[in-house]
C-alpha cells in the first residue's frame, strides 16, 4: 500500500501501526505529486490518503487517479470531523474514510474493509446540510 501523508509524526505512527500486519508499505508520499509518481512506479494495491496535502487536497488526487484508470482502493484520512467529508470522498472515488484519532483498530479495520472491496466510511462525519454540496 501507499501512504500519502505529509506530517512526519503521522507517517511514523502509521509505519509502526502497520508493522506485523498484513499490510506492506510500497512507499510513503509527502505530496500529491510524489504520490502520483509512486503510484505509477510502484503500483500499490491500496491507498491511504490524507485530505490536507501541501500541494492540494487528497480527494483531488484520488479523482485524478480514477480519471487515469487507476482503480486501486483508496481510504481518505483527516484529523477533523467535517460535514460532507464522506460524500466528497465517495464522489471522488474513495471507498472509505478514517479519522486521525490514534486508534490502531479503527485504522486497520478500515483498511481491511477497503482492501476487501467494501466501503468503510467513518460515520462520525456529519452529512452535508440540505442544499449544500459536498466539500
Amino acid at each position, binding site marked *: 500500500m501507499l501512504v500519502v501523508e505529509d506530517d512526519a509524526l503521522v507517517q511514523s*505512527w502509521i509505519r509502526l501501526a502497520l508493522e506485523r500486519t498484513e499490510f506492506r508499505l510500497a512507499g510513503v508520499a509527502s505530496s500529491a505529486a510524489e504520490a502520483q509518481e509512486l503510484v505509477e512506479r510502484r503500483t500499490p494495491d491500496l491507498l491511504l490518503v490524507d485530505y490536507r496535502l501541501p500541494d492540494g487536497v487528497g480527494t483531488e488526487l484520488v479523482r485524478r487517479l480514477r480519471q487515469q484508470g487507476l482503480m486501486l482502493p483508496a481510504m481518505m484520512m483527516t*484529523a477533523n470531523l467535517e460535514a460532507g467529508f464522506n460524500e466528497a470522498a465517495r464522489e471522488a472515488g474513495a471507498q472509505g474514510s478514517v479519522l486521525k484519532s490514534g486508534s490502531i483498530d479503527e485504522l486497520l479495520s478500515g483498511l481491511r474493509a477497503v482492501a476487501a472491496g467494501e466501503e468503510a466510511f467513518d460515520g462520525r462525519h456529519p452529512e452535508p446540510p440540505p442544499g449544500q454540496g459536498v466539500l
Partner: protein
Amino acid sequence: MTAENCHDDPGEMISELAHDLKTPIAAIKGFAELLRVRDDDATRQEASVQILEGATRLSDAVDELLEAFLVDPQLAAGLARARAKGARAE
C-alpha cells in the same frame, strides 16, 4: 497559521488551528496505544521519542496561537487581563 494571516479568514484560521492541534494529539494517542499493546524495545523506543516530539509540537502550536491573538489589540488586552487574573489566583 501565522500571526500575519490569522485574521484574513477566521474560519480558515480555526480549521487550520484545529488541524495543527489535533494532528499531534492523534499521533500521541496512537503511539501511547502502541506502547499499551506492544512490549518490544524498538516500539517503546520509537513511541516514546515520537510522543515527546508530539508534545513539543503541541506546545509550539499553542505558542503560535497566542502570538496570532496578540496581533489583535482587543484580544491582546483580554489575554493580559486573563493572565493577571491567573497570577492573582496563584
